[in-house]
């Protein structure tokens, strides 16, 4: 989808497409530089991660379809934690400050990234957002990605863990339909379980089965941000991840999310070469 909608290019990396000063022949320059976008993204992601690591801030990337309850989960998490962890949120949406406003209303720092047309966050957009947050005062940073089950899976933001939400209104075969996304998940959350009684067609067991069929060992937790059911297990996961992250930091190590390589970097194996002889032109 991205080459047709132009979503490779975000406000965060647009500068990479600008020709060097004084260069008048625009010609192939953008194409040439575009080539490196993903490489640049990965480099920026490493820089971001080093920044999180220097302040020991566990950073979690929340991904899902639009409307599966990412912001509601964050609201419920903030209430449940009740100040026991210092957290902040980066919100990604195409437009509006609505989600960041919801987080701020609970007294938690939030910065909204509006991506315009881009359907995912990238490492450059996150870097810009970091200027608006004080990492010194944080234990955990949540990045709520743009609601989309395709592109966000491929862009490393420099975060440490991927959490994928699947709400019970969506169909329990989502992991089978979007294997690249769900294979990237370090944790799958089945959300909105309070309305399960009205949705007999959704089976949490089947959803988890679809995840297991992707050879994923990621835990699958069930919760409702509205009723609070299942929140304890999610909070426990969070604490346990924070504990192992801090342990890793004591060893000067970091943790990386289950980001799939997606063959984004062309394998450097030597291709087979075939020669076709053609008559010399006159």
């Amino acid at each position, binding site marked *: 989808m991205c080459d047709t909608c132009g979503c490779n290019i975000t406000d965060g990396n647009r500068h990479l497409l600008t020709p060097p000063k004084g260069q008048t022949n625009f010609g192939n320059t953008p194409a040439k530089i575009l080539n490196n976008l993903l490489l640049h993204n990965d480099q920026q992601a490493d820089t971001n991660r080093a920044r999180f690591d220097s302040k020991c801030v566990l950073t979690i990337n929340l991904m899902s379809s639009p409307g599966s309850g990412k912001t509601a989960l964050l609201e419920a998490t903030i209430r449940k934690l009740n100040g026991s962890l210092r957290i902040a949120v980066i919100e990604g949406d195409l437009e509006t400050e609505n989600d960041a406003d919801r987080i701020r209303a609970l007294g938690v720092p939030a910065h909204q990234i509006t991506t315009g047309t881009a359907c995912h966050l990238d490492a450059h957009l996150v870097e810009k957002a970091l200027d608006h947050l004080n990492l010194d005062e944080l234990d955990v940073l949540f990045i709520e990605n743009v609601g989309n089950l395709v592109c966000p899976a491929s862009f490393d933001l420099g975060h440490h863990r991927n959490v994928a939400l699947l709400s019970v209104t969506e169909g329990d075969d989502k992991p089978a339909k979007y294997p690249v996304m769900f294979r990237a998940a370090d944790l799958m959350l089945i959300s909105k379980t309070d309305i399960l009684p009205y949705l007999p067609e959704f089976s949490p067991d089947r959803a988890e089965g679809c995840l297991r069929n992707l050879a994923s060992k990621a835990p699958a937790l069930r919760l409702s941000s509205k009723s609070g059911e299942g929140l304890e297990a999610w909070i426990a996961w969070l604490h346990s991840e924070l504990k192992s992250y801090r342990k890793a930091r004591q060893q000067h190590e970091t943790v990386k999310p289950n980001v799939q390589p997606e063959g984004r970097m062309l394998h450097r194996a030597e291709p*087979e070469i075939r020669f076709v002889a053609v008559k010399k032109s006159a």
Partner: protein
Amino acid sequence: MHELSLCQDVMDQVTELARKHGARSVSRVKIQIGQLAGVEPLLLESAFTIARAGTVAEQAEMITEVVAPLVVCNACGSESEVTPSSLVCLACGNNDTRLIRGDELILARVELEVDED
């Protein structure tokens, strides 16, 4: 996704090969795409028509070959060719498997036109 930037990566390698072998032009490029690569063959092909413009591969055709996932079972050791939505061992039904093929993007073959002498 991001097929255009991937195509630029392809073009870089192809252009370099053409230069190294003193080719006059590139006539065909073959790419293998794993079904779990997150890359859509049709989009890659259409992105290629943009990426090749003005290069030594301007007239080149891109052939894409889709590669099904291959897993090896951690329980029984069997290898199975599977579908992207089910990476389960076909021999014993275990889902404790490792993907050994199917998430890659490989430049498999390049056909170069060279002057006959």
